[in-house]
């Protein structure tokens, strides 16, 4: 089970990022839990300096701006 967290206070881009991640996981048929983290202290604890950020299995893979779909697929494949 891959553990994915989308970090962000809930702005438009953060929601868009969550959608991209969900779609990519579904396309790859990846068994994953996707969780949204909106608490600022928790976001900071992952070491992210910008949002939206993505954490896969505890590792920060992306911070700041919309991720590219091909990148998201690559991160998920490496994790899964």
């Amino acid at each position, binding site marked *: 089970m891959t553990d994915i967290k989308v970090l962000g206070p809930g702005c438009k881009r953060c929601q868009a990022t969550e959608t991209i991640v969900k779609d990519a996981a579904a396309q790859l048929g990846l068994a994953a839990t996707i969780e949204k983290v909106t608490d600022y202290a928790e976001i900071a604890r992952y070491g992210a*300096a910008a*949002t939206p950020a993505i954490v896969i299995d505890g590792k920060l893979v992306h911070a700041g701006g919309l991720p590219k779909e091909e990148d998201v697929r690559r991160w998920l494949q490496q994790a899964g």
Partner: protein
Amino acid sequence: MTQAVGPLDSARERRSLLWGIGLAIALPLWFLLYRMLQPIARAIVGLLPIEPGSHLAASVEFFFYDTPKVLMLLTLVVFAMGVVRSFFSPDRTRAILAGRREGLGNIAAAHLGIVTPFCSCSAVPLFVGFVSAGVPLGVTFSFLIAAPMVNEVALGLLFALVGWKVALTYLAFGLLTAILGGWVIGRLRLENWLEPWVRDLRAAPASIEARKLVWADRFDAGWDAVRDIVGRVWLWMILGIAAGAFIHGYVPAELLSRIMGADSWWSVPAAVLLGIPIYSNAAGIIPVVEALLGKGAALGTVLAFMMSVTALSLPEMIILRKVLSLRLIAVFITVVGSGILAVGFLFNALYS
């Protein structure tokens, strides 16, 4: 991280080439069209049943000329800035600034504040991320002040619409305010005025393995910025141009130069106060600036208004309240406000 080799890479190389060819065609077309805007606007106004030389004609021509002109400029400037910004990222900036001493740190932070891309909803994570990774508070503030104060899009538009002298002075004084403001806040040792959870947080900055960007990726980033920013501000922009057109056609020059001229000392503080509750994207305010200057408003007063609108905004204060105590926000407003006042008075003294 191992780079994907083979078909993916050659596809990216090919896309870089396509981008290059596309730009080589699009840029000359852009300049050609840009040069033809004035005659086109005249022709449109000539077709309308408006008396030539009237207030209305002046306003309408300003509108029809300025709208495509500013939108075209905005697109070009935002694209270029998007490409430039792809060379920077918040975590790289944080790595550069962590453990920096004050002084040089403030100078570096103010410059990086202009070019580091981050959206306004990132302000809090950014602030917390910087402070918890050991970037001194004053240096963090230099960054936070410079980012909205020297808006890179506003800078580009000022350069194109008002002139390089004004643009450069805006840049220089914006940087100076950010450097000195951050330095003063650092000297005041206000770490205790942070919200407790921020003060106690010590997070190891995580490094992200960035993928190698090819030029196609950077041009993509520029195009994304165009779609994002132009998509968000075009309406504000047109409202700003409409306001500018009204000023251009109807507001008498003596009235403006009496209210906003260099002789009335109170106009600078009034402009700053007026700008705090108004929050507009810098891009929307430039056409107004252009029209005000054309009518004899003093440069310092207009710049003070512009900086206040972009750098001191209520929504941002409300977001920052999550990490800063009210006292620290008050200090922030005071320091930045004084900086803007100083810029306003200095400009009025220099250019009148």
